[in-house]
């Protein structure tokens, strides 16, 4: 022992003169750091309730609970996360995973209670004092738990594509599809939104696993037109896909198409293995569009003998005659239809009800009848000169192009309308060599057509003139031409809060000369094949049926579906109508199969 060691400890006294470590009022003085992971904040209006936080939470601390206020909003599951702080570990994986970016953490960290069950709250719905805290952990922009960007789809360049009717989209290869499928977060909001409730996450999983057989089986459970929908579906699923909120939504449509592309048509029978037990009952289907054939497929699977009556010379309806080949080539459509036919569904082409065979005789001959005759009559523009010979209907141009006939449009074309038919007609006209101008009453953002369709039309050098209202169609000096008089419009806010209305500006009128004018402003139904009495018995509003819960009508044995019976007028809704009508018809014709089930439900 030396003296130095003995004295050294007394050095502690030096510290008596230094600033003490003690923070005098720690609770007030020390808020969490700016990136502190404290209690949760959820901006409930931004949140869509996809449940990703629930999925990623390894502590099972997050439940999704219904919140009345948000139920039924588009793209919103109506659920909101409830946090259990008897489980949470503040790892903030939920924040990193949050697709909507609504979830973050505050830097608040003090919560005491005498009751453990208190530590549970629906963030953003139940008031908490840290709700407006600006500091706290947020996901760094560059950090992602799933790839936010879509795998680029290879497409023909606009120059190549207007050369002909080759399909523009090339489709994913296996590697690309796997990568795209990997982005799916399996929330299931697409399933809920899809009219047909296709098992999207499940078939996307089958792509990840490389099990295309399973993928095809899953798709056929709810949709017998995967090749078609994989190309032209309006994909409401993608519009609600939460991955799209802070990135690109999953390319659900292209993935669906990828599965079909990977499976050879001759393997369908083996994979789907649809065993049909005949039940001896017959059903007639009027209209071989997606609705009719979907009903035919599911009825056939249940053992019905199905005859489909079609006025045109080929099955497919609007899919064949309304959708141009560069979007949906015949090979794709035929793949779907051929499989349905291969199950023993009889399609009678070139048979028009009302002329070739009467509706009443079908009613007598069959146990049930399903009507899905679609919308085939172009709507009128209601302006003078509309019946000018150089005014063509968009549907007619498309049908002619699809059948290989020359629609005779000339070299300079004006297309009127902003829907998909207008875009299709424009792009078909481009392919036939014409210069195209699209006239639309409102703005581009108001167009009902798919935004991609609009972009592609623009890329293919279709000129879009917006806020242009046609006023009159007049004879041109050259009888192969026509003059359209149109006026510029101003958008006027609707005082009642509806969407803005275009108002014609009388002082800004234009007159342009075109080789022809293609009108594509909508379609209506043609129900002339039904007699007056029948029409009266079927509830018809504005040319459309209003079917009951099982697509049934007030006339016994008659079921309806498709564009003629719904408000959405797209293929996937028609397919679901057909499927649902098949369920309804089965319930109607074989109620004995359902009595137990119904009792269970009630």
């Amino acid at each position: 022992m030396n003296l130095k060691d003995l004295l050294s400890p007394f050095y502690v006294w030096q510290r008596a003169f230094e600033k003490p470590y003690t923070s005098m009022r720690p609770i007030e003085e020390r808020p969490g750091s700016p990136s502190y992971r404290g209690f949760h904040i959820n901006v409930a209006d931004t949140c869509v309730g996809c449940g990703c936080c629930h999925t990623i939470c390894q502590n099972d601390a997050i439940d999704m609970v219904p919140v009345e206020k948000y139920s039924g909003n588009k793209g919103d599951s109506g659920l909101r996360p409830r946090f259990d702080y008897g489980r949470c570990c503040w790892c903030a994986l939920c924040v990193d995973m949050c697709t909507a970016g609504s979830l973050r953490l505050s830097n608040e960290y003090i919560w005491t209670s005498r009751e453990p069950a208190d530590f549970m709250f629906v963030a953003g719905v139940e008031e908490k004092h840290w709700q407006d805290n600006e500091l706290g952990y947020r996901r760094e922009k560059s950090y992602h738990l799933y790839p936010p960007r879509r795998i680029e789809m290879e497409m023909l360049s606009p120059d190549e594509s207007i050369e002909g009717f080759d399909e523009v989209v090339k489709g994913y290869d296996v590697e690309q599809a796997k990568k795209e499928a990997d982005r799916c977060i399996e929330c299931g909001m697409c399933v809920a939104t899809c009219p047909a409730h296709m098992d999207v996450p499940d078939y996307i999983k089958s792509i990840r696993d490389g099990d295309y057989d399973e993928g095809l089986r899953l798709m056929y459970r709810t949709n017998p037109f995967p090749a078609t929908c994989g190309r032209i579906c309006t994909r409401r699923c993608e519009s609600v896909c939460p991955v799209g909120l802070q990135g690109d939504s999953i390319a659900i449509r292209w993935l669906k198409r990828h599965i079909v592309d990977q499976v050879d048509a001759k393997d369908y029978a083996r994979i789907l293995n649809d065993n049909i037990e005949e039940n001896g009952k017959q059903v007639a289907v009027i209209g071989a569009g997606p609705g009719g054939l979907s009903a035919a497929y599911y009825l056939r699977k249940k053992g019905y003998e199905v005859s489909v009556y079609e006025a045109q010379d080929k099955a497919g309806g609007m899919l064949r005659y309304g959708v141009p080949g560069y979007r949906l080539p015949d090979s794709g459509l035929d793949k779907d239809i051929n499989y349905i036919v291969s199950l023993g569904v009889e399609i009678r082409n070139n048979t028009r009800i009302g002329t070739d065979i009467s509706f009443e005789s079908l009613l007598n001959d069959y146990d049930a009848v399903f009507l899905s005759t679609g919308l085939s009559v172009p709507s009128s523009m209601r302006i003078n000169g509309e019946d000018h010979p150089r005014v063509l209907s968009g549907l007619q141009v498309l049908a002619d192009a699809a059948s290989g006939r020359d629609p005779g449009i000339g070299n300079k074309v004006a297309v009127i309308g902003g829907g998909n038919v207008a875009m299709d007609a424009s792009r078909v006209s481009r392919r036939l060599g014409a210069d195209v101008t699209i006239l639309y009453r409102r703005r581009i953002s108001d167009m009902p057509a798919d935004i991609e369709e609009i972009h592609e039309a623009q890329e293919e050098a279709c000129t879009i003139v917006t806020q242009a209202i046609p006023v009159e169609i007049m004879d041109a000096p050259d009888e192969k031409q026509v003059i359209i008089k149109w006026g510029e419009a101003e958008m006027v806010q609707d005082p009642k809060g509806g969407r803005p209305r275009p108002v014609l500006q009388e002082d800004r009128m234009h007159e342009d000369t075109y080789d022809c004018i293609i009108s594509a402003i909508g379609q209506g139904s043609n129900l002339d094949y039904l007699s007056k009495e029948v029409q009266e018995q079927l509830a018809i509003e504005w040319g459309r049926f209003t079917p009951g819960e099982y697509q049934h009508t007030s006339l016994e044995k008659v079921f309806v579906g498709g564009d003629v019976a719904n408000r959405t007028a797209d293929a996937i809704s028609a397919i679901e109508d057909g499927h649902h009508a098949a369920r309804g018809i089965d319930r109607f014709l074989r109620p004995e199969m359902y009595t137990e089930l119904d009792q269970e439900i009630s």
Partner: protein
Amino acid sequence: MTQLTGHSASLDFSQPEPVDMSSGKYVKLWQGPQHPGITGNMSLELTLDGDEIIECKTHVGYLHRAFEKLMEGRNYIQNFTVVCRIAVPEPAFNEYLYAEGLEQLSGIEAPERAQWIRTLNLEMMRLASFMMWIGGQSGAFGLYTVPNWTIAYRDYVLDLFEEMTGGRIYHMYMVPGGVRFDLPKDFDKRVKEVMDGAEKLLDQVERVMYNNVVFKARSKGLGIITPEMVDPYGIVGPNARASGIKRDLRKDEPYLVYDQLDFDIISGTGADAYERAYLRLQETRQCISLIRQCMDRMPRSGPLQAEMPNVLHWKIPPGETYVKAECTRGEYGYFMVTDGTEYIRRVFVRGPSYTHAIAVMEKLAVGTNIADIAGLMVSLHTYPPEIER
């Protein structure tokens, strides 16, 4: 040059004969789990002859949470939040090793800047851990002033962590593929401030604690680890280095950016509790130097995360790896086996306390007396949670 210890045939490490308790000569005493002189939550079953210990048995398991089992049921990203809880005072090493293991198995490489930040994080962790240890060691020998300095000062390091990672104790910062977010603004200034203070504090601690006649008297000659013991007992880290074995994974098998940092392996020859304590003080100073180097040499910008697949379906091809890092107590290792699914097949966490607190402690305790047990225990620097996981 690495020194070798080899296995000497003369070294006897068989278990001692059971003590004849019925003779009435001996007393059995449990130190822990509820005892102020025990690190964490574990217990020592001591058999005493007077106040001399003739047998010591370590009992663990009070903190067993079955991490390895739980991890088998959680997917890869979920586990990243679990692992840090394995060693409470030093979670960062767990985070790093888990991330590193996954990156090796799945062929992902963390970007350079992320590697630097990870190194910085680990060294700060080491600093915080040593500060707490110094407090513990001096407290165990009855000097209660030093813990009031170092444990309080450790809190300033934790403040840095809070800014850097968003968490005080559990950072959950080193994600597989990189780090979660960038260093905050003006972080280097605050690091500098804290480091300068720490340096000053360590000088004070050296004077008050290491030169203290009481501390010297009690720690010198206590718990001598001979170089021959090192390999058979699996002794690693400062415990081995204090016995003259120059081994440091940061130097021997450089990971992260340690090959771009200037430091030497610190070793001593005293082999007793004092030497170990002094070595740790020097290593604490080394930490400060390494942290400064990291702050100076780190690339100013660059990506922080590698491109990652969707973590919800992240599958890693079958493989097996053992990754290790030098933590404050020596080799900390993760043995990981994957089988191609979304879940890990097997994780085994090798904490240095596993041997230090059981086999080594049981050996060294014999012959010491009851008053020194707490000091000896701390001098081996053990953390029970990493033993039992």
